[in-house]
């Protein structure tokens, strides 16, 4: 608990988490607002309300989580941290827990904020959250952000510099996994096992029920939707374990 308090103080005594949270909120909810405003009233579906949160704002959250650790390396406060807490694994795990928790809460705020804005701007649309799939599609954003944050922190610990970590995370999330689908024949087969594709699969609404939801189109996932989430989480945790081992062995 002590270490969680330490990481909380550290995180909230600098400005970057506030800026990143605000930016994620504006981008996530803002995109939904624009879509809602330019769609004819009554035509909006739940699947459309989460474009901003599941794609755009996710990237900002990944950057925020990576920054939480790369700035420590940038300003060498990681050394001050390791002097105060020589057990590096506990110190870094505490940081991961705090950042992932904040990312999760932020995810719920953005997801339901987007949904609320859509409802406000398009009152005639059927946006009621009835089915389990619909709940998962909206409330699942928080889980996605929390796990994404773990993954981003792992990358941050391994790379140690902001520019590198941010570039890796953004290219990986926004470009690489999508581009692999272009490879003939095997592309979509590989995609079925890529972490962010599985994250999208977790969010996907049941086929046919929502034509607006086409993000995981063409990929034949071998896992159930919750299985996909567990797979995404497994990869994030595995990467974190590698990062913790490296951090422990490396000179600070």
């Amino acid at each position, binding site marked *: 608990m*002590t*270490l969680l*308090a*330490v990481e909380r*103080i*550290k995180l909230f*005594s*600098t*400005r*970057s988490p506030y800026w990143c949270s605000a930016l994620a909120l504006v981008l996530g909810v803002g995109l939904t607002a624009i879509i809602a405003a330019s769609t004819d009233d009554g035509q909006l579906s739940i699947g459309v309300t989460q474009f901003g949160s599941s794609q755009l704002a996710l990237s900002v959250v990944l950057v925020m989580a990576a920054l939480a650790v790369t*700035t420590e390396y940038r*300003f*060498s*406060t990681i*050394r*001050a*941290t*390791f*002097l*105060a*807490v*020589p*057990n590096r694994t506990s110190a870094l795990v505490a940081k991961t827990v705090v950042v992932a928790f904040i990312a999760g809460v932020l995810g719920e705020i953005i997801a339901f904020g987007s949904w609320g804005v859509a409802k406000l701007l398009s009152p005639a649309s059927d946006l009621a959250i009835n089915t389990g799939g619909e709940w998962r599609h909206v409330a699942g954003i928080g889980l996605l952000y929390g796990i994404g944050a773990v993954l981003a922190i792992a990358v941050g610990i391994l790379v140690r510099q902001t520019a590198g970590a941010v570039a890796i995370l953004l290219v990986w999330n926004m470009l690489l996994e999508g581009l692999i689908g272009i490879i003939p024949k095997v592309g979509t087969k590989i995609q079925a096992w890529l972490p962010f594709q599985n994250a999208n699969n977790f969010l996907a609404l049941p086929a046919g029920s929502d034509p607006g939801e086409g993000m995981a189109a063409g990929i034949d996932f071998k896992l159930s939707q919750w299985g996909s989430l567990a797979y995404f989480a497994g990869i994030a945790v595995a990467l974190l374990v590698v990062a913790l081992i490296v951090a422990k*062995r490396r*000179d*600070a």
Partner: protein
Amino acid sequence: MIEAVRLRKHYGRTKAVDDLSFTVRPGRVTGFLGPNGAGKSTTMRMILGLDTPTGGDVKIDGKHYTEFKEPLRKVGALLDAKWVHPNRSARAHLKWLAVSNKIPASRVAEVLEIVGLSEVAHKNAGGFSLGMSQRLGIAGALLGDPEVLLFDEPVNGLDPEGIVWIRQFMHRLAGEGRTVFVSSHLLSEMAQTAQDLIVIGKGQLISQTTTEQFISDATKDHVRVRSPHAVKLREILAADATITEDAVDGALVVHGIPAEQIGEIAAEHQIVLHELSPQRGSLEEAFMQLTKESVEYHAH
């Protein structure tokens, strides 16, 4: 007490610290002296568990730094005053340090008062001058009221007033029975601060002694002699003295025989002298002489 035994740190072929053994005693200020790149900071990082030694061992009161549960209560360190997030206030910086080692929050205000930063505690550390940053670093080191204190080049970039302040401060800490280990590349500074000296060059121990002893050894008088018959004179004097040659003008530098006696010997052998001047050794010169072999980068 800090004890290093055959400590080594190699980066590939570079031997940053090589077979270094020394002891730092409590109740005294011990200076850690060596030219830049001698391995002082690397040694301090190994003492504090930040870097893993390639070989050997270093312990604080019989334990590795990483074995202390609340290390800030045992060891306070200022390795680099810039290890602070620039957008975090001085108070917030000390607060998280205090919380991490279960140090009461009231102590934060205390140490800010001690180093004279109470007025600017709410300001972001990024806007601090180097002197203020050093003071904040010292506040962090004092936070846990530790028995052992390490300072790496604490006077670097400080104004004379700050230097005097730090010097007196370290004496007071040692007077309270604490172990104070402070590094510097300036012998003149260490001569006024430290009671004991550990001198290293190229990662190896050159000497461990009291400062008093080091200075009296280092500043022995010598005599400069120039003569057209230098070779002959040298042969005669060599029996009773160590003689080196000044690299600039080829004058003989004689240790161990006073100027008067050299004059008499020269007269006895009918040797003409062009110069016979007693010299008082300077501390800085002696240090440079001592570490000349081990300075990593020479100016040419």
